[in-house]
């Protein structure tokens, strides 16, 4: 759950990019860092990688100050996708306010996607998140590659699920911001319900999305 620090008048929202190994979670963050121009934008913090694979997590802090003076920080994390790092993945997922599940569109990756998604569901329950109510967007990444599942095939399998499906090419940039905005749109009502963003801080949903995901 988002944390409100009364002393420094600050609300911190945590969003997590989850998914199988090499599906493009870090690339999503890097692309967002380039694309977005929020009022406040930190550097991407990359914790120890091994052969370009995430060992701990990546962190991109974004933020803006509400008209009320409240500092709203949105911290984007990625988890390590490799199966062996499950404990780390679980720790990073803890306290998440929303999740982007980055799936690999390549035909051969269907099973890895399914396993990772199941892992997300299990870990969410383990760290005490209500998976049924957790804001979630499923992104099918790597649309630019050959030999990917057709959109119709993907929609056949995933279309019945309640989560928005976004097709993306993180390497090129397509769909990355759209994914992020779809997540913010789901996250806003939850946070607004708790912290009365609109009523007390005069930040409604469009303003929230624009402030965090505004284009540069």
């Amino acid at each position, binding site marked *: 759950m988002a*944390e409100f*620090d009364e*002393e*420094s008048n*600050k609300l*911190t929202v*945590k969003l997590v990019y989850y998914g199988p190994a090499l599906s493009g979670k870090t690339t999503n963050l890097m692309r967002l860092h380039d694309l977005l121009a929020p009022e*406040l*934008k*930190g*550097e991407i*913090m990359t*914790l*120890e990688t091994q052969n370009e694979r995430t060992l*701990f*997590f990546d*962190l991109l*802090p*974004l*933020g803006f100050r509400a008209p009320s003076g409240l*500092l709203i*920080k949105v*911290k984007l*994390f990625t988890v390590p996708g490799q199966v*062996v*790092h499950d*404990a*780390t993945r*679980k*720790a*990073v997922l*803890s*306290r998440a306010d929303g999740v982007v599940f980055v799936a690999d569109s390549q035909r051969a990756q269907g099973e890895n996607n399914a396993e990772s998604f199941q892992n997300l569901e299990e870990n969410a329950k383990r760290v005490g998140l209500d998976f049924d109510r957790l804001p979630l967007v499923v992104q099918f990444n790597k649309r630019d590659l050959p030999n990917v599942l057709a959109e119709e095939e993907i929609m056949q399998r995933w279309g019945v699920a309640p989560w928005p499906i976004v097709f993306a090419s993180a390497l090129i940039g397509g769909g990355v911001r759209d994914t992020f905005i779809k997540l913010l749109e789901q996250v806003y009502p939850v946070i607004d319900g708790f912290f009365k963003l609109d009523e007390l801080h005069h930040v409604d949903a469009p303003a929230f999305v624009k402030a965090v995901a505004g284009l540069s």
Partner: protein
Amino acid sequence: MSMPRLSSKRWRVFLERAVEIYPKHFDREFSLKELLAGNTLERLGHCLDALLGAPYRLTSTSGALLLGEADALAQPRRIPIHHDLEPLGYLESEQADEEKFKAAAALIELMLQVSARYYMAAELHIESVQANYEALKQKHVALQESEASYKALSESLEQRVQQQVQTIETAQRQLYHAEKMASIGQLAAGVAHEINNPIGFIRSNLATAGGYVDKLCHLAALIKAGDNIQLINFWHDADMDFLMEDFGALLKESIDGADRVARIVAELKGFSNVDQAEEEVADLNENIRTTASMLKSRFEGQAELKLELGEIPRVLCLPGHLNQLFVNLITNALQAVPRGGSVTVATDVADDTIRIQVIDNGHGIPADLLQKVFDPFFTTREVGQGTGLGLAVARDVVNAHGGRIKVESSEGKGATFTVYLPLGGPNTDNRKPSTTE
């Protein structure tokens, strides 16, 4: 993830301390004080002294002093120290060179960034190690539970095996008993035949004797009347000379027959105590003779039963059981020989051991079956004809007497079963045959 080599107890202590040291989450918001904790702050102070060469103050956003002058500066310039998106504190100075002042602030920000990276990685590591440890503990509990259930299973398994063994033992005992009853039944048939014969002629003799008595009564009446002519006529007609002679012979024959029945009954007593586990000193030759005479009639005209009994000492034994041994061995041999064949039972003694041999000249036992003849339920006879227990019981009886039994045979040349019984007596431990248990 590799863990330090610590015992589980030390590892737990380590983790508990780790959790005490890092009670917060890796993704929490850090304060300036936290990020510059330890002697980092002191060393940073020295650097700032040297770099700025003028009084300065490093404070948190709330005004708490971390480094520099204790008292507020009169007209300070102020640079916010940012981390992430927001200022965590301020660097203030009045006289420091502008360039150096900015460089000092940038240096502190850089340190905060490095420090935050370290703390986040370390605390995430602690969190995941603890999660792994918790998972291990849960696995340990699960393993203990499964071990306990396996233990319970193995215990109940043992119990079930014991029950099965008991069932099998009971069934075996019943079968052994059935085998005993079957051999007794066979004996009874022989005995009935043996007794029937004398009873038959004794009854016939007594009927004849009854007729003789009638004639004698008539003769007595004639004598009383004193009619000599009639008396002489009757004497001749009734052939009283033959009657007087035959009456005596007839009575003698009947007494012999009755004696024979009495002897058979006496012999039968040897078999009436099959189930008695009382030890007695017995002459085994006598037992063999009894058994032979019991069996003889059953195989009358089919096979010859010869006894070549040497002089052997009396031994302490269970005569009832040995009788069964002899019945089984001799019956087995008699059944194995073709019509006109012969079975010889021989006894002798050598080296404190009594040797009893049952030799037949039948068709013999094939070499591949030789090892199996003492196995329970092994039989070459038609279903219902043999229990397959005769020789197994024989072996048990011999074992119970501390002896041993062996079989020699080659196909077509008959078979020889040899029993060795120790004179010194068996070990008392296994004296009791399993058949009586």
